[in-house]
């Protein structure tokens, strides 16, 4: 069996699963059902649904920009976008809107649209993973001072989340804890930091399952 053909087959399967899970025609209920099935499968395999090895939107954006020999300042200027926004996408800190991503793809080459659009659907999960990889605001506050800024910093961390992500976290907290106060959201992030890698991945997927970027695409 040709390894290359096998890899292409696996990739095509992933594409199809991806389209079924996140495609425009999928309803919220279908998505929840498909996502649940995929998670169960992944947990049984010990992978917890992550697609290990695949680049995030930010990583791919950076690679494509570097292929063209551009700095983020130059790329954003040429695409008519804010340089700080471009940097925040590359750092998996924010998720670009469809309009912004179209401009990016226009600059990086029309062939990149499909791939970037597909990666964008998983970008909120990458943003959440990135947020959890940063040191806890409580630890930072204790490390640099007397800890008096800890609570403020923790709440600000929630406010600094990508809007899609914050909304999803609010939904998750409302469903599981009965409230979506900022301090509760901050506590949820703090607790997620304490989970082991597999549990954390599962938690990220569970929170991000409610995110509907597609609504924006239709407008």
């Amino acid at each position, binding site marked *: 069996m040709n390894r290359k053909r096998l890899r292409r087959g696996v990739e095509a399967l992933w594409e199809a699963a991806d389209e079924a899970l996140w495609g425009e025609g999928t309803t919220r209920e279908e998505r929840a059902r498909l996502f649940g099935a995929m998670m169960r499968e992944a947990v049984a395999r010990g992978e917890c649904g992550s697609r290990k090895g695949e680049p995030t939107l930010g990583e791919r954006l950076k690679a494509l920009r570097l292929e063209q*020999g551009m*700095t*983020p300042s130059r790329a954003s200027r040429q695409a008519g976008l804010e340089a700080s926004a471009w*940097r925040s996408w590359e*750092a998996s800190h924010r998720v670009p809107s469809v309009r912004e991503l179209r401009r990016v793809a226009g600059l990086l080459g029309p062939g990149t649209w499909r791939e970037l659009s597909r990666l964008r659907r998983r970008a909120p999960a990458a943003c959440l993973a990135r947020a959890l990889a940063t040191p806890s605001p409580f*630890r930072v506050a204790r490390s*640099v001072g007397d800890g008096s800024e800890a609570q403020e910093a923790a709440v600000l961390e929630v406010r600094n989340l990508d809007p899609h992500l914050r909304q999803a976290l609010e939904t998750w907290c409302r469903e599981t804890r009965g409230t979506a106060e900022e301090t509760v959201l901050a506590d949820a992030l703090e607790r997620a930091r304490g989970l082991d890698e597999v549990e954390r991945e599962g938690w990220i997927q569970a929170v991000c399952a409610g995110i509907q970027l597609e609504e924006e695409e239709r407008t």
Partner: protein
Amino acid sequence: MTRRNLRERCRSDRDLLLDALVRRFGPVSQGPLFPAEVIDDVLTEVMGYELVDEELPKGQLAVCDFERRRVTVTTRLADNVHPKTDLVALANSTKAHELGHIRLHTEEILHTDRATPDLFGEAPVRVLVTYRDELRKTRLSAAERRREREADLYASIFLVPDRLLEEQPAMLRLRKAVARHEDFSSRYLWRLTYDLARAFRVSGTLMKNRLVDLEVLVYLDKERELRVSRQSMLFDLEEQ
């Protein structure tokens, strides 16, 4: 390291980083290159750091995370300063200050200074926070104060190259007037400092520090007044 050696190190480091950026991405400016134009690109493309804007607690200007290679600048700059302050210039100065920490203190932060767990038994967090608050600065330890001073010096040398400063009309005005032994009011010198700061897109404080470090001006801390340091005008700035 003596201040003179540190200055020399900062100068050569600036040239090294700007050269690396130009070699990698081609010319970045049509005319003379004002480093403030490329400070973001130096941080991300040459140093490999992420640069993000986030809301930070009041009084904090920026956070530099050495382990995750990330610089975060506050989106609440306006809360910390006078309403007329040029926020882009302040952001440039803050980023250059963080670059100073990265270039001068990475080894110190990552490997020596905080090698033991903190009081809570946790592994140390290898971050530096830059505060606007003067009161906060007075609470720093001797080592932290030294690091802040060095990062300030690095930022001023990085953003205001000597030769470019010499070519500025405001600087030429000052030189001519000093040669004629004219007197200046502190107010006039502050205006001149801010003219230069605007040209370089840096904060007034950073430009004042640069002119004081070059011994062009003397700063009277108590009165917040500026005076001309006359003997300095006799030297070539690049030679100091």
